[in-house]
């Protein structure tokens, strides 16, 4: 990697100041940035290590929502009694991210801020209709994910926590890329306050909602209901591991499995 300055602020305010430098990068678990640095694909002037900011940690229930600090590691979400009781699908999703080492280092905020199309968490955030808390505002999930590796976050804006409404039902299923084991196609389904949301990750350049499946499930919450919904391959990803058509097909399969998991 190239040389860079290293900062470890203790507060969100200090971190925001350091990130005013457009060439500075925030780091949390480091599972995306560190490999990029090692491959010299990224040359930040400074790396701002958020791990010392206590206010960005922890899991708590607030009313009818679970609020999870951005620095919370995947393993903590996966094993949290609070999350398991309120949104078991979210704990399940976290327990299946990467491998043990990834789950012990990677964080919710890091994953969601990065918005890798093949990451797991964006599907839960969009599927549950979560609210993103940042250093300056709250952003609805529908407005947050804007494209491949692109979010509504501004350069000096830090994702501090995510507020997940507690659903009546939710489920997640994914097909892993055989090589990387990232998501090749995943579906998160949730019924929250009577409204159905279906979020698809892995298959396209950015996590997206599957409106036809949402309509079908709103009328009839069952795997059969989505069986008749055809996911278009237009705009989906194709690579050496699978075509867009294959991914479109997998969206249907994973939707059925997610519904089955949700019960």
């Amino acid at each position, binding site marked *: 990697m190239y040389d860079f300055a290293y900062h470890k602020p203790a507060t969100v305010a200090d971190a925001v100041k350091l990130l005013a430098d457009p060439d500075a990068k925030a780091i949390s678990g480091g599972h995306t940035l560190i490999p990029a640095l090692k491959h010299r694909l990224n040359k930040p002037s400074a790396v701002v290590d958020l791990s010392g900011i206590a206010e960005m940690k922890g899991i708590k229930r607030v009313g009818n929502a679970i609020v999870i600090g951005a620095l919370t590691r995947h393993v903590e979400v996966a094993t949290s009694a609070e999350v398991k009781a309120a949104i078991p699908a979210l704990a399940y999703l976290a327990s299946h991210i990467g491998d043990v080492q990834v789950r012990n280092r990677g964080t919710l905020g890091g994953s969601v801020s990065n918005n890798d199309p093949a990451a797991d968490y964006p599907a839960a955030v969009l599927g549950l209709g979560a609210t993103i808390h940042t250093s300056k505002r709250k952003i609805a999930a529908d407005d947050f994910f804007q494209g491949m590796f692109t979010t509504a976050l501004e350069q000096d804006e830090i994702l501090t926590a995510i507020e997940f409404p507690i659903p009546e039902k939710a489920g997640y299923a994914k097909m892993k890329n*055989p090589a990387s084991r990232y998501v090749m196609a995943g579906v998160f389904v949730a019924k929250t306050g009577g409204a159905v949301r279906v979020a698809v990750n892995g298959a396209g350049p950015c996590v997206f909602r599957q409106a036809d499946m949402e309509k079908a499930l709103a009328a009839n919450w069952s795997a059969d209901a989505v069986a008749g919904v055809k996911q278009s391959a237009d705009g989906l990803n194709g*690579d050496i591991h699978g075509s867009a058509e294959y991914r479109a097909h997998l969206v249907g399969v994973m939707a059925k499995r997610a519904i089955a998991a949700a019960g």
Partner: protein
Amino acid sequence: MNVAAPFEGIGASVRRKEDFRFLQGRGAYTDDFNRQGQLYAWIVRSPHAHARIKGVDTSAASRMPGVVAVFTGADMAKDNVGGLPCGWQIHNKDGSPMAEPPHPVLAVDKVRHVGDPVAVAIAATRQQARDAAEAVGVDYEVLPAAVSMDAALKAGAPQVHDGAPGNLCYDWHIGDKAVVDAAFASAAKVVKLDLVNNRLIPNAMEPRAALGEFDPTTGDYTLHTTSQNPHVIRLLMGANVLHIPESKLRVVAPDVGGGFGSKIYHYAEEAIVTWSAGKLARPVKWTADRTESFMSDAHGRDHVSHTELALDADGKFLGLRVSTLANMGAYLSTFAPCVPTYLYATLLAGVYTTPVIYCEVKAVFTNTVPVDAYRGAGRPEATFLLERLMDVAALETGIDRVELRRRNFIPTDAFPYQTPVALQYDSGNYHATLDQALKASDWAGFEARRAEAAKRGKLRGIGISTYLEACGIAPSAVVGSLGARAGLYEVGTIRVHPTGSVTVLTGAHSHGQGHETTFCQLVADKLGVPVAQVDIVHGDTAKVPFGMGTYGSRSLAVGGSAMMKAMDKIIAKGKRIAAHLMEADVDDIEFERGIFRVAGTDKTKALVDISVAAYVPHNYPIEELEPGLEETAFYDPKNFTYPGGCHIAEVEICPETGKVSMVNFTAVDDVGRVINPMIVEGQVQGGIAQGIGQALLETCVYDADGQLLSGSMMDYTMPRADDLAPVSVATHTTLCTHNPLGVKGCGEVGAIGSPPAVINAVVDALRDYGVRTLDMPATPSKIWGIINGGRRMAAE
């Protein structure tokens, strides 16, 4: 109290001695060696598959912090550095030699694959060397690339080498075509099959590394390198590349973390660090990162074949015709030309009595990484072809696939058996390994398991492969007549120390095989010295006599045999010393497991009594016998060895996603006499893991421009534990008849026997979809395409 020592000889599962240091992180690998004043090299590599080098500007790089030197191919040429040599010459059908274009250490006029070395930056730290390498300005004129073999063979294709017109390295054949054609003309049935043997990237756990040193006082060079055969590297690099006398060049291969063939070859980086160390009179180290490994370690396999089998009305094979294209990559790696010829076509008889065989092989240059031997080397390609062909033939003749194989097996009483493709098999019992595997896998009960799986919505299939390989490489005179530029004997020295412990020097090299245990067991068995008192020295040309290294499952069959011969000499000398000490006739001395006895008496001397006498020769037949107790033997095998057996794979396919899951794997292998059953089981399991990797997961993909798409673990699917199945490994032994141990070799059988078993199982699972050809790897998307296409066909 006198407790009997546990048996540690031949047949005992002695725990691996080397694991104590490996498990404690105390192994000493090439990158662990650091020298005072050491510099670091970073290689500038081509980002293009094919380009003319119009200029290399090192001026900015040379001025960067910490940089000591930046060298180019022109600098090496000024020093008369030679090209990387090829160790095997194949001849064309017309008798002319193969095209053998130069392979410069650093590219001079042209780069020919992504990753081709162009320059080297040498600096005080690795980071500084890398910074400088990035600052080297190479002016490339990008040329169209010949990436696939198809494209490379087309008229007007871009030429990889001027000296290889049409990108053809050689056009070789074996067998009498007219005789084979006649057999086909009389056949009741001809079965045809097209196959691809997918290109693999070896991915040893330890990336390659090299540390060059030069002593200006003595003029001695030392190279530490990740090699399977340090003497071969010393010979090739000393004689062909750097022109250093072998007496002035020491090559050390310390602990090496896996090779699978990829660390046999002499690579550019070894010459670069050794030469640079001499130029700069400072140690120079290079260590590959994983990205470099993908684009600079020799790849494996990469065949495209058309094959035809002629059968009579009873399903007996009448003849086999094979036409193969084999990818050489951009340059000839050390042993590349022999892989698709003498390690491949000679195996096409397999375990069958096919009376006549013809095979032609075109080797093709492409703008890709060089391709060379990878675990099994040629034999997996032959086995995959044959065993897929067996299943297609069974399908098309309506003869049960097991019965068809059985009907054509070489009978158990037919050994020695001369095949029509040069090899003479010494021993085997293919019916026995088949029967044992059928039983162990409950082949007969499979249909019930298929039905049960169907209830769960899964497609279950079972597949079989009855394979054979040739290893214990190799009789020197035979391979010499076939174009090898090396002998393939092995050396062993047994040094019995004065107080009775033993050091074994061997030319074989262990990079995972467990030699430090298995070889000790030979000594324990033969000389009665406890394993704890035997040490193995290998991998250092300054310590070990000239040996040929480890590949082709040869270490025990060839290296172990050399040790046995050396121990015979120790015993013979020991008997003479014992006879003197016990005042008996030497012919009356018997030796068994460490004890010399005067036959029919209770007069004995232990080995330690003999060794003491040999090194402190106060009471010694000094007039007729030299002091000391150390013997060296070179063993040149009389023949290859022929392990074989039966592999049975069972898979389940999820029809919704196309994902193939291994659910069971049974291997029954005849590896000859087993020295350490635990190590054999581990070797076979590892080979099967690689075979399953090839069958279901791994494949090297280039795009049309020659960029490596599967250039990292993100896109190249290495097998993980959960990709594998419970593997049951058993052995059925027939002894090799021509080496003193009766051993055949176990390093490659897993990777050779398993891929067709797995693919045959997948095809069996898909039997309702009319699958005839299925190229590896059977990825989920590929299988889904078949299932999806099948459904469409059914609907139409």
